[in-house]
């Protein structure tokens, strides 16, 4: 037992590290899975996977990006198995869900954006989430998405323009 004096400390260090980005993982998962509970499961799963291979974590120069990549893969797998099982992809009722969540300023804007983003292709949703919400730099996004920075910019531009059009349309009809 004397060989492991840092056993306890390591756990705290690990949790401190996770604390720095667990909200990002959660929001990323929720963007993809929509369901609050499923997003929580995703975070829990990713954290457990990280915990199991925590010795390796020192080797990853960017743990945060690595965790985001794991979250992405987990969520895409979940979505795939949902489709394979012929389960309907639930388009959430953000209007109901968000109503329960306090502390959210300008909820209407958030709800509107969530709704509009659901119609974007999944890849664009992820990129917008990473850039416009979490403010990752392009290098990190390229790493997480396993795409070139150029391709990321193109996808981002398409997504933003789709959102722009939708917002202008809504504004025009006075909603």
């Amino acid at each position, binding site marked *: *037992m004397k060989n*492991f004096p840092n*056993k306890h400390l390591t*756990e705290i260090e*690990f*949790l401190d590290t*996770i604390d720095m980005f*667990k*909200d990002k*993982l*959660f*929001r990323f998962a*929720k963007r993809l899975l929509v369901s609050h509970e499923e997003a*929580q499961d995703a*975070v*829990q799963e990713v*954290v*457990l996977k990280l*915990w199991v291979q925590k010795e390796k974590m020192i080797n990853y120069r960017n743990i945060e990006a690595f965790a985001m990549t794991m979250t992405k893969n987990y969520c895409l797998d979940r979505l795939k198995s949902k489709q394979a099982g012929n389960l309907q992809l639930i388009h959430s009722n953000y209007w109901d869900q968000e109503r329960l*969540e306090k*502390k*959210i*300023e*300008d*909820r*209407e*804007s*958030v709800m*509107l*954006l*969530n709704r509009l983003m659901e119609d974007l292709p999944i890849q664009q949703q992820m990129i917008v989430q990473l*850039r*416009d*919400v*979490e*403010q990752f*730099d392009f290098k990190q996004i390229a790493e997480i998405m396993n795409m070139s920075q150029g391709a*990321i*910019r*193109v*996808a*981002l*531009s398409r997504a*933003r*323009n789709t*959102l*722009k059009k939708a*917002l*202008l349309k*809504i*504004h025009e009809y006075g909603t």
Partner: protein
Amino acid sequence: MELNIQKLLDLYFDGKTTTHQDQQLRTYFLGNTIKEEWLPYKSLFVGFQSSINEKYIQPIDLPKKRGYSFWWASAAIIAFLIIGGNLYKPTHSYTEQEAHESYAEFKENVLLVSSHLNLGADRVAHLETFNKTTTKYLKKE
């Protein structure tokens, strides 16, 4: 200022703004003086900005540590079984004669046990009578 914002918006929709420029746009749209024609974009920047207020509040459960003693204990048990299994060798082998003798002895013992087992069996008959009688009695009531 507004000229600058127009430039930033163009860059933004081309996917070419830096994080710093994105921040400038956010600051502008969070303010109260937004140019009429850009009002539709307010939801975009305000929405993104407010999205980060959503937090993961569940506690994180790490698997409970069983400690190293658990692993040592299981290792010790396995080692004991392996070593013990290898060390155990019958001290001498039985001849056929001896085997028959012990079989006979065993049979005798078992028979003895079974005869004792049957000792209580006739009492069961009494129990049945008792059962009948009670039923009769109860029926009469």
